């Protein structure tokens, strides 16, 4: 143990007196508490914890004390400095929070300001409707088949049992393509339906065949609210062993339920198409009133005109003559086919009142439909 400091001068260590340390501490704490912003706090910090601050100076004096006094003085000054440091930290956090709150308020903007800087696009609803139907059948295992729009008459008519002098051939309002010599006898037309794709499919694939054929077709109608010479069709074809009309009906029931909701069923009405036998018109139960508007003039239904059913397309069992023309043995295979109009579906499914809206390309019509329907 070393000898005590003989040059102990109580006057020189005035700053280490308990009252002085306490005073310096309290002054520091008061200054910290009084700091109303971060800048004032910084000033207080420099003044009371900086190198020239009373506590720092006091701390420096400790070394001059005699050993027995050092511990006590060190503890006293250390505690005071610790209290000041804690107060500073607390106040720093407080004032930062206050500043942040103020700045964030100042930075607030009107988030309701409109922002349409980048252009918005959309796909045509006829395209997306077709894809929706394709996807539904693809999910059932069908594949999507396509063919040319300018088509040989043999595919469009003959192979479909619409023979040259059959009344059905003139029923179809066909656009004929001019031959090279200027005559009408080119043997080529704008396809009047997507059924020639069925023929092409049967010629190039072997059963079982399950395909869906979407595409543009043409008939010589003038454009008006309910007609267009260019329109979209989607047809289905199945050729397999043992297919029945029941399979056709079940497929259509599934189709319309997926498109229009649970419980929507189809109704088949006997009809005539040369390429199917038996043939049927395809109606679906009105998905809006579900038949409730029938005989209820108080609650008419716009969608089905209070008929309870919506006419949508045609269907039937593939005429064995068509199978023969495609080299498929009707003794072994049978098939069913159906076709629906896309424009008509868009009209009743999406309340389009005028077919011209689908044709004219006005972006106000197209944009709201977005990317999928």
């Amino acid at each position: 143990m070393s000898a005590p400091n003989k040059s102990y001068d109580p006057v020189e260590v005035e700053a280490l007196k308990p009252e002085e340390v306490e005073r310096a501490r309290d002054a520091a704490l008061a200054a910290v508490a009084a700091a109303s912003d971060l800048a004032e706090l910084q000033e207080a910090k420099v003044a009371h914890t900086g190198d020239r601050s009373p506590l720092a100076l006091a701390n420096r004096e400790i070394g001059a004390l005699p050993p027995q006094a050092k511990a006590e003085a060190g503890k006293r000054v250390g505690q005071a400095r610790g209290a000041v440091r804690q107060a500073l930290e607390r106040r720093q956090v407080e004032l930062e929070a206050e500043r942040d709150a103020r700045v964030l308020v100042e930075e607030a903007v009107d988030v309701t300001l409109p922002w349409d800087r980048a252009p918005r696009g959309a796909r045509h609803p006829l395209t997306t409707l077709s894809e929706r139907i394709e996807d539904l059948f693809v999910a059932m295992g069908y594949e999507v088949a396509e063919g040319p729009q300018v088509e040989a008459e043999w595919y469009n008519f003959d192979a479909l049992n619409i023979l040259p002098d059959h009344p059905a051939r003139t029923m179809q309002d066909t656009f004929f393509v001019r031959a090279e010599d200027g005559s009408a006898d080119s043997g080529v037309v704008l396809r009047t339906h997507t059924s020639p794709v069925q023929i092409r499919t049967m010629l190039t694939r072997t059963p079982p065949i399950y395909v869906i054929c979407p595409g543009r077709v043409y008939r010589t109608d003038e454009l008006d609210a309910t007609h267009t010479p260019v329109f979209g069709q989607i047809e289905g074809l199945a050729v397999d062993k043992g297919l029945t009309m029941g399979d056709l009906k079940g497929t259509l029931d599934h189709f319309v339920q997926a498109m229009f909701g649970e419980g929507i069923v189809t109704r088949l009405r006997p009809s005539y198409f040369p390429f199917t036998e038996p043939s049927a018109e395809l109606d679906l139960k009105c998905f809006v009133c579900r038949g409730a508007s029938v005989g209820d003039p108080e609650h008419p239904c716009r969608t089905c005109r209070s008929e309870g059913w919506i006419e949508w397309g045609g269907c039937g069992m593939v005429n064995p003559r068509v199978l023969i023309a495609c080299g498929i043995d009707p003794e072994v295979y049978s098939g069913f086919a159906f076709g629906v109009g896309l424009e008509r579906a868009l009209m009743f499914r999406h309340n389009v009142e005028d077919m011209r809206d689908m044709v004219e390309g006005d972006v106000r019509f197209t944009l709201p439909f977005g990317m999928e329907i």
Partner: protein
Amino acid sequence: MRVPLSWLREYVDLPAGESGRDVADKLVALGLEVETVEQLGADLKGPLVVGRVLEIEELEGFKKPIRFCKVDVGDANGTGEPQEIVCGARNFEVDDKVVVILPGGVLPGPFEIAERKTYGRVSRGMICSARELGMGDDHDGIIVLPIEAQVGADAIELLGLVDEVLDIAVTPDRGYCLSMRGVAREAAIAYGQPLRDPALLDVPDANSYGYPILVEDAAGCDRFVARTVVGIDPEAPSPLWLQRRVQMAGMRPISLVVDVTNYVMLELGQPLHAYDRARLQGPIVVRRAHEGETLTTLDDVERRLDREDLLICDNRGPIGLAGVMGGESTEIGAETADIVIEAAHFDPVAIARTARRHKLGSEASRRFERGVDPEAARAAAQRAVDLLAVLGGERAQAEAGVTEVDAPREAVRIVLAADHAAKVAGVPYTRETVAQRLQEVGCSVEGIDELTVLPPTWRPDLTDPNDLAEEVIRLEGYEQVPSTLPQVPAGRGLTADQRRRRRIGRALAGAGFAEVLDYPFVGQSAFDDLGLAEDDARRRTVVLVNPISEEEPALRTTLLPGLLGTLRRNLGRGNGDLALFESGVVFLPNASTPRAPQLAVDRRPTDAELAQLAAALPNQPQRVAVVLAGEWEHSGWWGKGRPQLWADAVEAARVVADAVGVELTVRQDQYEPWHPGRCAALVATAPDGTERVVGHAGELHPRVLKTLHLPERVAAMELDLDLLTADLDGEHLPQAGHISSYPVATQDVALVVDASVPAASVEAALVEGAGALLESVRLFDVYTGAQIAEGGKSLAYALRFRATDRTLTVEEATAARDAAVALATERTGAVLRGA
């Protein structure tokens, strides 16, 4: 076919309260398309009675002659006194029987009748014309009833004014339903009632003293029945009931003879023709036309005949187009008393061709084309003869001569497995059900497991087992068909092409473009508007024989005309900032196009035959195009927007190319209708290095925009997808690269090149020169101005280098940069700026 319900009831006992709607529902379920059920006389209200004209006083001094009549209406007016009525018609005399509506009655309109003062008198009711009663358009005068009409009797019933008419759209397979007999047969089945067949008549056997008929073309005419009626009073009118029925069925009453032939056609489905015997010279001959022959038909049109046309002739030449329309020369006239009635059966194909060739459809040709019951001819002739003998006046009588020319017809015999209908429908019909249903439609059926079926003569559409299956299934009811699902084999999803087209559509829509679907019709003027040269390949088009508009007879060879038209329509409607796209095919004719042959349908065509069909079709590649106008980035509170420009069109091409995974190179080009200085050729490169132009993009030519009345600076892009994706072998499988985690070394270079040097060339040289360490290159500034020599431009690039296995040293990065610059200098004359 218009079917009055009252007439239908003559052949079938329908339940008493059954409405037209009820009957329609039943017929629809059997496959007759009933389009409407018309309620005739629904708003008609009596008293509407038969009156006898007692006195006529001619009123003078008005603009038109007016009559003041006293009419005996019996007790219908409650007093028995004569009814005083003002009338503007003049086609009646004292003692004529007329139709009178009394005050309180309502005529169709509705038009309420009340006592009113007119022409200085009080008129208490009205004497009615046919039109006023809703009986057609005849307004030449009031109706004069037959003298035997009972005064005071209800005229509503007498004239059959209240009825329901079913309008049925008859499908081509159901020719027999173009007759009351045919519809009645269906109704009888629907109600399970017997049919009173109007064709079951006593017909005398043919003999040798009827009017001479020579059928020279048995293939065209396999049956010809001729009967004669003489002494017809040309003045004899058709009875009201007959006129009314003909009129309700949609035809116009004309004269007794014409009305009767039409009536019998409506009833039995057999078209008849009546010739004025006095105007016939020699026997009636059925033959094909000779070269150069002409015929003036009843519609007063002289027609040049084709050698295939089937004709009715006499000694002087053609007197009618068989089964289509008669000729003027033997037309029934105002003096006709003796007639020859033709009830014939013609070949449907011959009639269809003649009707089509001469664009002359008639009630007769419509029926022959769809198939007329050959066995109905005799009955129909008999029915007409009977009616005319009764209605044609006192001296009218049928002559005993009956001519019949008959060619043998082959009977159709169908062998049908008894369970075939069950297999088609998926419904277990018994053999008994099948046989019974087939018999109901008129077939004779024999056999147990294998049925031999002879269809009735009025059903030429029944030729195949499936035709018979349909008869069974529809009569049993389509609603019996169950709802089952087939076992579909697992599919492969969309093809690569189909997925690509969808991706392109989504990518463009996501990039801000709105899809349109334009018509593909164009005219040469569209190509003129685009400023295409006379020999531009796009002017070679597929042309339609019968376009919607003569101005646009061709099919598009580019998507631009349609898109630009749609752009203009949108602008015209005030839609200003526009980015449109279309994805669709164009039609490019081959150098030479042979006729597509008509192949057989009784077997699969050979591959060579199918190739012939393919050769006749134009190339139909898939295209995608965009047009842009106005602002691309919109102006707003954030500041000024950015107008669209050529680069957005080029970018659209990149969007498409990215969507399908093809890298596009852009080249400066000149191609109509683009601005010659702002046109980019879009180039794809094959694996072997050969390049092909797959489309163009840029700003459109100012002259084109002016011609099309479009705003300045409109940009456009068109890309051939078939060309773009030609190198993609099926699926495009993007491959993952190695992602280096070592730091990037960035070096910027500014290169001065001649202004004519394309930036793409400089960039290509930099990429090649920099080698494998180059991660990316980006042009971040283009400068021309004071600090660059005249005719030059400065291109500033940021080059990013990175190695996969180490941190690059500055020396390595610099060396790579120098190599890049060196190659750019060699290839493009680029000089490092400041060097």
